[in-house]
């Protein structure tokens, strides 16, 4: 620091550092809801700090628990902590659906989109609303099991409890995407946290210049050994805008980096939107060496740029503008990393470049009025003809019209992801049956009903990957399984997580009909009884099984494990959480026979204690044996 700084700045810096230090060392003693704390000041105005727990969970991308349940569901993140400071696998916490890299290593794993910016690695998110908007000074995340998943914290300028009627809000939003702003308070790559012990995570957050009562956490669990569990998120903030928010960014070097990051994250799209149509590029006599390079080579170089960089590059000169607008650059396009900024205007400007698009990722985009049904429809009408893969996870703006447009405008569609699109009305799913070329369909946590699904299964005989996890509106899964066995002979992976009423009859039809099945998730299906022989039947008929989840099926027994050992030697992932009937001996047989086994979850299996796990680990070092605990 230069000693030449004027006096005011020195005082400002001092106050700023006090405030930062205060945010870092906030203790658990302050965690009574809404207790006001006087901050220590010298000659500066008093700013009262408010401590709040989340009032409500507004939105999330996935969770482990059942819809309508209080166990392991995202709704547990609201309110005061129930478990912290204890560590362990408790029902009263918020748990996401996946962890580690296991879901990337099974037959249903999807190829990633290229051009994902390295700063974006979020896999799941949850949005929390608080009672009072504040300027955040600290965010405490109480993690009670396998901490370390949070990679990003964002704050929104919109108040979810505001009185604006939705139409008015949408009009305002359409005018300018900056009416609803998301600021990144903190962001970091995932780091390995050793051990499952509970902790309070308080990252250093950036100061923002608007009050917020809507916080979003984004998580990445890929480095974790087991499911992460969150208990509460505490928001500390002040009602009055802190005096020195502008000066602050000049002082801390870290802040400067983050601002630049923010620039890259946000402004690219704004630039695209504002300047695209009024491009007056200067004519230079030559483009230097670029004139000598073949067209394809420049295209190749550009293919390594992220989309915002591509937009910026387009403004440099006419040659590069031409290159950057070439539809060949937009064959695979993922707008998910920019979910906060994508709106109808963005889609409009991208339209002309996306005429040849084959893979489109609009997951997480368009919420809170950013994308309208007409905007989306217009885009697909222009760009849908070559579309092969469409990701629309958590697309809450989607309605029946959108699905109709998708199915009409995308005749070549092979992959459709509608994961957690819980606002789509049940009758909308009937349209999907029109897409006969579908190979992958993800309907996790949607409201699809029996008739629509039967129709889809009837007409989409090319289906290889199907996810019906937590589809609670389906009444008779045996019928569904029967239809699958009859019509979807090419099925390779099937997710029936929490399918409440499937029985041995459905399993039998599935096993006989879908001989190519490599992956089957029957977690939390309580109506399957081992005594009917359904699991042994499964094992015998499906020798190609690589992944089998029988989570919380309390009837899985030694006979089943032995049959798996005998018939399913290609098994890589097995989850038998919560059964009392499996002994160490049958597990040994399984491990000896299935040489490719890499994941074995024996949590809450009463015959498999820690001693057994240690012994198995010693003899079979290539297998990750998971044994969760409560304390």
């Amino acid at each position, binding site marked *: 620091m230069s000693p030449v700084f004027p006096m005011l700045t020195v005082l400002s810096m001092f106050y700023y550092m006090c405030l930062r230090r205060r945010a870092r060392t906030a203790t658990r003693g302050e965690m009574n809801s809404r207790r006001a704390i006087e901050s220590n000041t010298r000659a500066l105005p008093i700013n009262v700090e408010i401590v709040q727990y989340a009032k409500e969970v507004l939105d999330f991308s996935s969770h482990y628990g059942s819809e309508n*349940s209080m*166990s392991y569901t995202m709704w547990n993140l609201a*309110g005061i902590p129930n478990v912290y400071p204890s560590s362990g696998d408790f029902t009263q916490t918020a748990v996401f659906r996946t962890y580690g890299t296991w879901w990337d290593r099974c037959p249903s794993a999807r190829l990633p989109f290229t051009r994902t910016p390295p700063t974006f690695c979020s896999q799941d998110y949850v949005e929390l609303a608080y009672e009072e908007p504040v300027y955040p000074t600290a965010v405490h995340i109480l993690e009670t099991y396998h901490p370390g998943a949070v990679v990003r914290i964002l704050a929104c300028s919109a108040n979810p409890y505001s009185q604006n009627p939705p139409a008015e809000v949408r009009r305002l939003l359409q005018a300018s995407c900056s009416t609803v702003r998301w600021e990144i308070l903190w962001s970091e790559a995932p780091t390995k946290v050793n051990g499952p012990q509970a902790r309070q995570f308080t990252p250093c957050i950036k100061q923002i210049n608007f009050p917020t009562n809507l916080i979003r956490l984004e998580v990445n669990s890929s480095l974790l050994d087991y499911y992460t569990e969150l208990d509460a998120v505490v928001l500390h903030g002040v009602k009055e805008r802190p005096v020195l928010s502008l000066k602050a960014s000049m002082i801390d070097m870290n802040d400067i980096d983050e601002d630049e990051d923010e620039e890259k994250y946000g402004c690219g799209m704004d630039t695209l939107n504002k300047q695209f149509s009024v491009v007056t590029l200067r004519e230079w006599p030559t483009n230097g060496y670029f004139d000598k390079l073949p067209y394809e080579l420049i295209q190749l170089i550009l293919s390594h740029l992220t989309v915002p960089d591509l937009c910026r590059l387009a403004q440099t000169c006419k040659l590069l503008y031409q290159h950057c607008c070439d539809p060949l650059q937009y064959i695979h396009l993922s707008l998910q990393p920019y979910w906060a900024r994508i709106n109808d205007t963005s889609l409009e400007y991208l339209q002309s470049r996306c005429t040849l698009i084959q893979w489109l990722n609009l997951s997480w985009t368009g919420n809170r009025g950013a994308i309208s049904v007409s905007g989306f429809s217009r885009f697909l009408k222009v760009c849908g003809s070559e579309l092969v893969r469409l990701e629309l996870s958590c697309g809450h703006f989607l309605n029946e019209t959108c699905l109709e447009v998708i199915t009409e405008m995308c005749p070549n569609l092979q992959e459709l992801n509608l994961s957690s699109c819980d606002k789509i009305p049940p009758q909308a799913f009937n349209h999907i049956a029109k897409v006969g070329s579908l190979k992958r369909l993800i309907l996790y946590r949607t409201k699809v009903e029996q008739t629509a699904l039967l129709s889809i299964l009837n007409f989409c005989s090319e289906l290889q990957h199907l996810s019906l996890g937590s589809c609670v509106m389906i009444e008779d899964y045996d019928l569904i399984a029967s239809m699958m066995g009859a019509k979807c002979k090419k099925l390779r992976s099937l997710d029936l997580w929490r399918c409440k009423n499937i029985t041995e009859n459905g399993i039998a039809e599935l096993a006989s009909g879908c001989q190519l099945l490599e992956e089957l998730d029957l977690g939390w299906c309580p109506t399957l009884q081992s005594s009917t022989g359904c699991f042994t039947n499964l094992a015998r008929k499906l020798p190609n099984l690589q992944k089998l989840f029988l989570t*919380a099926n309390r009837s899985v027994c030694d006979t089943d494990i032995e049959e798996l050992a005998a018939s399913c030697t290609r098994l890589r992932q097995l989850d038998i959480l919560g059964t*009392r*009937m499996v002994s160490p001996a049958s597990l040994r047989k399984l491990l000896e026979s299935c040489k490719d086994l890499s994941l074995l979850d024996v*949590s809450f299996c009463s015959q498999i204690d820690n001693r057994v796990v240690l012994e198995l680990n010693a003899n079979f070092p290539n297998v990750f044996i998971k044994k969760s605990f*409560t304390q």
Partner: protein
Amino acid sequence: MAKIKNLVLETISVHITLIFCFLLGVADGVGGWRDYGVDPSQFSGTLMRTCERLVKEGRFVPSNPVGILTAGYCELLQNKVPLLGSSTACIVVLDRTSHRLHTANLGDSGFLVVRGGEVVHRSDEQQHYFNTPFQLSIAPPEAEGVVLSDSPDAADSTSFDVQLGDIILTATDGLFDNMPDYMILQELKKLKNSNYESIQQTARSIAEQAHELAYDPTYMSPFAQFACDNGLNVRGGKPDDITVLLSIVAEYTD
């Protein structure tokens, strides 16, 4: 509220005060599970704690206590831990705004409402056969169909108005099997005022008296009387866990 620990405590009770209603719950774990290596208090305890959590999070309707029981039972099945066991359950909700009492009872725990020295409402015992009450249960898979398991919908539910001064007594069968109504009423007559200490004292004395009678071999307890009526020639009390929850409808003071 008074609890007498007899054998291993199997009965669990909860009481929750919210702004608009007051809730009581009692669950009596079925002891027979001990023979199978299962701790009988685990089921009843988890059930009541789950109901408590449901209520605290507002996931209930005061006029539908059976709903609380059903939701609580379903949540038990959502636990990763493989719970086993069974218990009766009795839930009583006092709705402050409508001055109505809503109750749900499954099994042989129950409640009495006493007004002016007389029983004006009581729960009915639900028994399949002698000494085998209705019960919520989670059985090990090999015992499915053999172990008694009643659905939460089978609970009796009643709703009625209450007045100031009404005494609501909720208890497990350990009380009702050992102490006939007139004895309970006698004890309740001694209740002079509605402050916390007197109620606590009365609850304690009822429970203690029941406990003494339980071990009296010559005493003709209600349990023995019922057995005789069913052809079993027995006398004496019935040793059991006794849980008594006593409450009085009083003016709401902040």
